[in-house]
């Protein structure tokens, strides 16, 4: 298949021996290895690539790089595609499949284009104005707006692309591998600096690849290859092509995303110094119908011809306000295209060799473009005369904008307006401490200056880094064929005449009229104008539009452009995919998952898990063949504990050992009930407060030996309690001799609970005396079980006679299975968190995070009586704060369902009257709804401002509308005297 716009040319970046086949909008085309999707489309004569965001106007390829506002495509199979990729940056590969966005039913016949008929309504701020009234209609408007809004479609299937992350450290990060960047990297590398050189393009060399120039007696391409070869031979240099530095952060940190054949890599680079050699981006001109396919940036034309051998038109017109576009005319003619005319806004045209027979019109303007899907002709105005020039390509240049985004990521005070560029450039060669600006992005215009600045920046960086001296890089000799042309632009970018729309921001469809309207409506700050009109707010972040927009705003306001100023620059420079930011941290790798040593047994035996902090814990066991629901299973498991015996895996509870001469004193100051005073081989239930007086955590403190204690914490608070203890040890009482060691993962712990638990324990450890006298309630003993150290505690959370048995983690499964075997004659059964919840609610035991939510004091939950002695402890003083002592604070109470059947809804509010929808004052809330196997009735714990037992309230869920009449009771439903657990 032929590629009508492809020519033969020396020094191309493509490999003509490797033809590639690709599909665009369902049609098959050919390209070559080394093409981008954009160059291959242009080679095939495809200009129309998309529809615009708001007006659905036909759009073509404007540029050849990162600045592209129009040519956004979907890449890949529909559904599994990546949206909003710039065709100018997609490397062509065999079998590539891409589609236009924002059009239906087809790119050529797009129904959405009918919206242009309504365009007078779609001016700046139309969302705010048009859809405000009447307010009830918003839900109808919203559906339509949502459908029309946004660029591209989100993929519908999971992203199979590969992503990874790297942390890197270097002495010098060089951003941009054009002439300045290459020189800076070479200079620093010769002085043994560790250098990372990055460029967003696949082919390095920057502007050199589109200019007709010889350096040091070689072609630009040869010189770039030789320079790169020198760099790549050094072990201290890393060259990263197709890598974008998307953000500059504090302390010399940079975010990079690298595109490779295999996927994307996010690099987090810490650089001691950096050189910005980011070059400049060409601006378009603003004139009537300047968005037509076939209107392209003049510099991009040079790149398409000189890199890819693609001539995007046969007969071109050129519209410029600076000299650089004249080089495009030369380039087009060398490529065999005709140059119909050069239309120059300025009074005087430069004299450029080789263009003697080209018609050059000065003080001339393009006032219109004919051809809606492709340029057919341009209308020009010279003086008062109008002319039509037939052409199939219009090359425009409105000057060049130095790419200063990364420099400005820390603030705009590093920038100053420069009249020659008509744009902002850095204030000096080191505008940010440690960051050098060099080359075109630092305002250097001629290639010799750019190279010299690059060498100087590399030397300055190496000097500041303290690198050893080396032979400096010599400034290479530069020969321009036909003389060098300046990018200095006339301070005009806009044509006043013409009837069509004049686009400033092509991606967001922002026109000159929109800017004028915003100013008429009183917007003055460029930041406000930007937000109101959406100027520069697309995925291209106004790379080609911001300066033109600022110039137009300044002109209308009668201000200088530097008085109007720029908008704020923020990372990312280009969009970064969510996949790259996530890296491998998705799905099961999203967060750490902690499993108990007995986890595999739970899995094999039908456990249904629930997360508890980072842990997975069994919620209930779905016994094979039973098909039980959560409620059925949990009621059975709980009843079995009350009637017989059960075991639960409580390995996840936090465990911290506290040792040292002052360990007892330390614990006394942390707990409200002087837990350091617990007797040897005894356990005590303790409560800790935060310094503001609210309950922080609870658990047991066991004195294992003199000066040695083991404390337990709730599962989710284990880390926070450790930090709390370390803070007080290091910061508040550094004079106390205490050592704190978290040991959660060292031990597997099983709770054995139920009336038969002592018999089970006796069978498990026949040699141990486990009688009530030998191991009373809250007793502790270290024993030996199957040859390993085992800790035996008589602690009960369920309210039954119960033990907790701890063995080194590796022996957890052995213990668990031995307990099941020993308990078999007694009807032992494992129980999960749900049953544990039923049991503890019946007993009125509280849980941190539900009943104790960071807003309750010990007095609120009936634990005020635990406070011992007169000595200080953390939080004690705060309990006297007026708000914490006032009357009417909600207190812990119990509730039973009044009819004995209706479940009490979760997160319910308590009100006095049956809920009918009329607002009532909340009297409190349900914190733990549950079911009592003993009472065979729904019960709950809650915090409420009620005193009398026996009163009646309504528990109403504001989310579901469920409600239940509840009777107020004491917050203990079972064995209030604790006879069972002491027996």
């Amino acid at each position, binding site marked *: 298949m032929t590629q009508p716009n492809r020519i033969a040319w020396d020094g191309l970046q493509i490999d003509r021996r490797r033809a590639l086949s690709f599909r665009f909008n369902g049609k098959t085309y050919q390209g070559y290895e080394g093409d981008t999707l954009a160059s291959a489309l242009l080679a095939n004569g495809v200009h129309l690539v998309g529809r615009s965001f708001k007006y659905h106007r036909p759009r073509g390829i404007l540029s050849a790089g990162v600045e592209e506002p129009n040519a956004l495509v979907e890449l890949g199979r529909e559904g599994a595609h990546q949206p909003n990729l710039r065709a100018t940056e997609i490397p062509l590969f065999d079998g590539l499949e891409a589609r236009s966005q924002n059009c239906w039913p087809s790119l050529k016949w797009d129904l959405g284009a009918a919206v242009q008929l309504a365009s007078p309504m779609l001016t700046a701020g139309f969302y705010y104005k048009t859809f405000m009234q009447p307010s009830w209609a918003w839900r109808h408007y919203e559906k339509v707006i949502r459908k029309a809004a946004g660029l591209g479609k989100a993929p519908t299937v999971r992203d199979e692309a590969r992503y990874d992350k790297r*942390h890197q450290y270097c002495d010098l990060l060089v951003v941009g591998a054009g002439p300045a960047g290459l020189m800076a990297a070479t200079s620093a590398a010769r002085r043994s600096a560790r250098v990372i050189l990055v460029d967003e393009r696949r082919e390095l060399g920057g502007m050199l690849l589109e200019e007709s120039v010889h350096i040091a007696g070689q072609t630009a391409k040869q010189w770039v290859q030789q320079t790169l070869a020198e760099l790549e031979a050094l072990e201290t240099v890393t060259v990263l092509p197709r890598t974008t530095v998307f953000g500059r*952060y*504090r*302390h*010399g*940190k940079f975010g990079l995303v690298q595109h490779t054949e295999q996927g994307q890599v996010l690099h*987090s680079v*810490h*650089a*001691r*110094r950096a050189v910005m050699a980011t070059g400049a981006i060409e601006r378009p001109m603003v004139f009537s119908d300047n968005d037509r396919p076939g209107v392209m940036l003049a510099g991009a034309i040079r790149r398409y011809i000189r890199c890819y051998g693609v001539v995007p038109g046969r007969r071109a017109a050129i519209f410029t306000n600076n000299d650089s576009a004249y080089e495009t005319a030369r380039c087009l003619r060398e490529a065999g295209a005709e140059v119909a005319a050069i239309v120059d806004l300025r009074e005087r045209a430069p004299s450029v060799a080789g263009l003697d027979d080209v018609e050059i019109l000065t003080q001339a303007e393009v006032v219109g473009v004919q051809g809606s899907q492709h340029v057919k002709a341009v209308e020009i105005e010279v003086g008062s005369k109008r002319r039509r020039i037939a052409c199939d390509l219009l090359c425009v240049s409105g000057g060049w904008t130095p790419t200063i985004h990364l420099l400005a990521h820390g603030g705009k005070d590093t920038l100053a307006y420069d009249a020659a560029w008509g744009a902002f450039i850095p204030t000096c060669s080191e505008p*940010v*401490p*440690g960051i050098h600006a060099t080359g075109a992005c630092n305002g250097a215009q001629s290639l010799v200056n750019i190279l010299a600045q690059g060498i100087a920046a590399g030397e300055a960086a190496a000097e*500041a880094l*303290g690198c050893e001296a080396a032979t400096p890089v010599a400034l290479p000799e530069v020969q321009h064929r036909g003389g060098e042309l300046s990018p200095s632009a006339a301070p005009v970018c806009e044509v006043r005449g013409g009837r069509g729309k004049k686009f400033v921001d092509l991606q967001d469809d922002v026109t000159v009229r929109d800017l004028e309207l915003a100013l008429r409506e009183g917007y003055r700050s460029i930041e406000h104008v930007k937000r109101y009109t959406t100027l520069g707010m697309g995925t291209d972040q106004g790379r080609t539009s911001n300066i033109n927009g600022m110039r137009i705003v300044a002109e209308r306001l009668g201000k200088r452009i530097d008085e109007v100023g720029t908008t704020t620059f923020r990372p990312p420079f280009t969009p970064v995919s969510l996949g790259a930011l996530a890296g491998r941290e998705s799905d099961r790798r999203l967060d750490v998952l902690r499993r108990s040593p007995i986890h595999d047994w739970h899995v094999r035996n039908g456990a249904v898990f629930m997360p508890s902090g980072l842990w997975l814990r069994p919620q209930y066991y779905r016994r094979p063949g039973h098909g039980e629901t959560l409620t059925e299973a949990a009621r059975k498991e709980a009843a079995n504990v009350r009637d017989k015996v059960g075991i639960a895996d409580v390995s996840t509870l936090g465990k911290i050992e506290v040792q040292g001469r002052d360990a007892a004193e330390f614990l006394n100051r942390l707990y409200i009930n002087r837990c350091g005073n617990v007797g040897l081989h005894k356990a005590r239930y303790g409560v800790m407060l935060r*310094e*503001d007086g609210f309950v922080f955590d609870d658990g047991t403190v066991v004195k294992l030996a003199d000066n040695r204690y083991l404390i337990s914490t709730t599962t989710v608070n284990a880390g926070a309690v450790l*930090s709390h203890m*370390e*803070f007080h040890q*290091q*910061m*508040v009482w*550094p004079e106390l001799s205490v050592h704190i060691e978290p040991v959660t993962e060292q031990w597997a712990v099983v709770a054995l609970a139920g009336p038969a638990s002592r018999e089970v324990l006796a069978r498990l450890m026949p040699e141990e005396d486990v009688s009530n006298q030998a191991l009373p309630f809250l007793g502790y003993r270290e024993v030996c079980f199957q040859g390993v150290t085992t800790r035996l505690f008589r602690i009960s959370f369920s309210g039954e006679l119960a033990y907790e048995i701890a063995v080194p983690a590796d022996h957890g499964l052995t213990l668990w299975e031995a307990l099941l075997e020993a308990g078999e004659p007694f009807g032992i059964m494992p129980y999960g968190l749900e049953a544990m919840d039923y049991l503890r609610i019946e007993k009125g035991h509280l849980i941190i995070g539900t009943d104790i939510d960071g807003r309750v004091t010990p007095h609120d939950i009936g634990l005020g009586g635990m406070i011992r002695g007169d000595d*200080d402890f953390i939080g*004690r*003083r*705060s309990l*006297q*704060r*007026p708000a914490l002592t006032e009357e009417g604070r909600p207190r812990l109470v119990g509730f039973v369902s009044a009819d004995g059947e209706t479940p009490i809804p979760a997160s319910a509010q308590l009100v006095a009257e049956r809920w009918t929808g009329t607002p009532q004052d909340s009297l409190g809330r349900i914190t733990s709804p549950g079911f009592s196997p003993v009472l065979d009735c729904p019960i709950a714990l809650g915090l409420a401002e009620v005193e009398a037992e026996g009163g009646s309230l309504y528990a109403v869920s504001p989310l579901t509308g469920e409600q239940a009449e509840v009777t107020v009771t004491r917050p203990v439903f079972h064995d209030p005297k604790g006879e069972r657990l002491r027996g």
Partner: protein
Amino acid sequence: MFYIHCPYCGEHREEEEFHPKGQAHIVRPKDPESCSDEEWGDYLFFRDNPRGVHHELWVHAVGCRKFFNITRHTVTYEILETYKMGEQPTITAETYAASAQPESEASQVVKQAGVRA
């Protein structure tokens, strides 16, 4: 992203290893019971929020788990020094204002606590 020198480990590490813990040099009253509500409230809740040099408490949470102090400029984000618990800062708002501005962010990082070039 900060690059922080832990004075206990003696190394620069990424910010992800650390947690900020608020203002440094807050001393818990020796006898809380003798504090008025105002004094206790000041200790509990009230913190400085200066524009400029600030002394902060940080913890090397996934490193040595030690608490230490950072003198940080809240406008430029420069870390001027890090120092151990119980030590006093050598740079304060007053001394900083009197001295010349150091020359580079990266070299300041290197200068933290005067370790490693």
